[in-house]
């Protein structure tokens, strides 16, 4: 399949980019591995007749009106249930190697998408730091609880604890409570109360504050206990989680008080987000590591252009900051891609993106604020037991990781080779940031000095049969006119 602009990721950023490029006259292919558009925050119901449950999206329900145009736009071809497993330059543009992702892809996905420009809108993955008992069935990420609710109208349990850190905890808990779950408490590790009063910057985002206050009020009405400065220390149970152990923590997440044990049958936990970088790296885009967080962000200029000409990035990939930032950046990225494809001249580009710069600046400011409000503490390292699993896929224990780190200057590639961390099915998506963080802390090195596990030459598992048949030839000279 040949197109002008390929957008990978159909969350708010990708949808906005696709619309901006298509509105400028481009042929656009919008790709996502999920079965429908929306990404995480605007996740749609997958059940026929199932209502698209609000579950916490800021718009209060479904897709925001401006994004609904994606479905019928004549310039946008939707490729849902499709994963990109490899990408690189081809001819004067790029080739994306695709495979059906199992998420109900209909028919045969095109094997390759050749595009003049690419917009990377691949979002972020959830960060969960390990703790004793985190592998018990019933312990899931906050995103999983939300996805189950919105897409499948299914509750993960009857008595659900929500814990961790970050702005996702409140909306997830509120969504669960609205659906009739008994939320056994919301425990936020950050000392968010004292911090809010100390940050005048929060006053510049009254809408966000009001939103958070709305969730808190909804939970208070439902008599759901919400606490700040408390961390989930352990989960216990035989074949599934049966109780959660919480402790007061200081600013570094070190236990500073007695534990409270709460009976539960499910736990939704989240410690933040990490931008997904495998596609951007495959396309040669430069990214910059964060100082305090085991993550990196794709470097973009004022037009959302990456260091690779013709590749643009928007949304969480350039910095975790939520839907508003993603939509603003997506609009600029889509217009810039259209400009690269020759559909817009400079005047046309400026007309479509005027006023975005200031708004994007404010959105990025809010993203930076979030990072300061919800820092990652290191106290959880002290809570790990020798046999606590740190790599879920390969069942690698904490004592094996510390043993490997004791052997020398621990770049993550060597640590991975010695312990098998990151070698399993998920290829380091879950354990990578954790191992990076632990390696840096335990050896006294900077977070950006130990390497990371974000580079994946095979982005998503693909069969040897599909790999053997991959089209590595030159892109055809004549564009396809069919969908």
């Amino acid at each position, binding site marked *: 399949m040949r197109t002008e602009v390929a957008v990978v990721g159909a969350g708010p950023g990708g949808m906005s980019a696709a619309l901006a490029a298509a509105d400028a006259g481009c042929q656009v292919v919008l790709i996502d591995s999920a079965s429908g558009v929306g990404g995480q925050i605007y996740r749609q119901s997958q059940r026929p007749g199932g209502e698209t449950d609000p579950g916490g999206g800021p718009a209060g329900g479904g897709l925001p009106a401006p994004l609904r145009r994606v479905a019928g736009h004549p310039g946008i071809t939707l490729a849902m249930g499709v994963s990109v497993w490899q990408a690189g330059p081809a001819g004067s543009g790029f080739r994306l190697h695709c495979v059906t992702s199992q998420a109900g892809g209909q028919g045969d996905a095109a094997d390759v998408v050749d595009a003049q420009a690419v917009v990377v809108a691949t979002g972020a993955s*959830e960060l969960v730091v390990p703790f004793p008992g985190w592998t018990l*069935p019933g312990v*899931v990420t906050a995103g*999983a609880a939300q996805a189950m609710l919105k897409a499948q109208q299914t509750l993960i349990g009857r008595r659900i604890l929500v814990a961790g850190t970050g702005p996702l905890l409140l909306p997830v808990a509120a969504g669960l409570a609205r659906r009739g779950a008994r939320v056994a408490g919301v425990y936020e590790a950050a000392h968010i109360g004292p911090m809010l009063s100390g940050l005048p910057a929060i006053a510049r985002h009254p809408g966000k504050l009001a939103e958070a206050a709305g969730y808190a009020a909804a939970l208070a009405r439902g008599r759901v206990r919400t606490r700040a400065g408390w961390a989930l220390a352990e989960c216990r149970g035989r*074949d599934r989680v049966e109780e959660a152990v919480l402790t007061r923590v200081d600013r570094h997440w070190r236990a500073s008080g007695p534990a409270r044990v709460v009976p539960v049958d499910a736990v939704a936990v989240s410690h933040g987000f990490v931008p997904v970088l495998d596609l951007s790296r495959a396309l040669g885009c430069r990214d910059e590591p964060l100082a305090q967080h085991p993550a990196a962000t794709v470097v973009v200029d004022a037009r959302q252009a990456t260091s690779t000409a013709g590749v643009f990035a928007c949304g969480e990939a350039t910095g975790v900051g939520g839907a508003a930032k993603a939509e603003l950046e997506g609009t600029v990225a889509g217009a810039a891609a259209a400009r690269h494809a020759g559909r817009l001249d400079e005047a046309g580009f400026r007309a479509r993106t005027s006023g975005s710069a200031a708004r994007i600046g404010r959105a990025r400011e809010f993203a930076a604020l979030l990072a300061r409000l919800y820092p990652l503490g290191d106290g959880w390292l002290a809570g790990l037991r020798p046999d606590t699993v740190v790599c879920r896929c390969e069942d690698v224990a904490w004592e094996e990781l510390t043993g490997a780190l004791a052997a020398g200057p621990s770049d993550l590639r060597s640590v991975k080779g010695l312990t098998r961390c990151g070698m399993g*099915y998920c290829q380091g998506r879950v354990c990578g940031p954790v191992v990076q963080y632990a390696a840096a802390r335990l050896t006294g090195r900077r977070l950006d000095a130990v390497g990371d596990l974000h580079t994946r030459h095979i982005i998503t598992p693909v069969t040897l049969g599909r790999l053997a048949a991959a089209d590595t030839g030159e892109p055809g000279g004549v564009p396809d006119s069919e969908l």
Partner: protein
Amino acid sequence: MSASGPGPTVSFRYDGAALTAPAGSTIAAALIGNGILSWRMTRRRGEPRGLFCGIGQCQDCLVDVNESPALRACQVFVRDGDDIAASRSVGWRDAD
């Protein structure tokens, strides 16, 4: 625990037992809705796993479906007549 109302259902088998779930369910939701929280044993420790990230990234929720081994239960929709079995965390399903 499924919060949806009445509607079309699909029938499938898990580990030999006959179960049903609302149409449009993923295998993960179908199993969780039937009170089943784990459907995989890890290779090294033999510990039970089920849903974790819910969005197709962590690969914890692998399950065997018909002839296909180790598919992500949170991504695959359950279909009428599916024969679903616990995964042993390998990409191979022995013919019984």
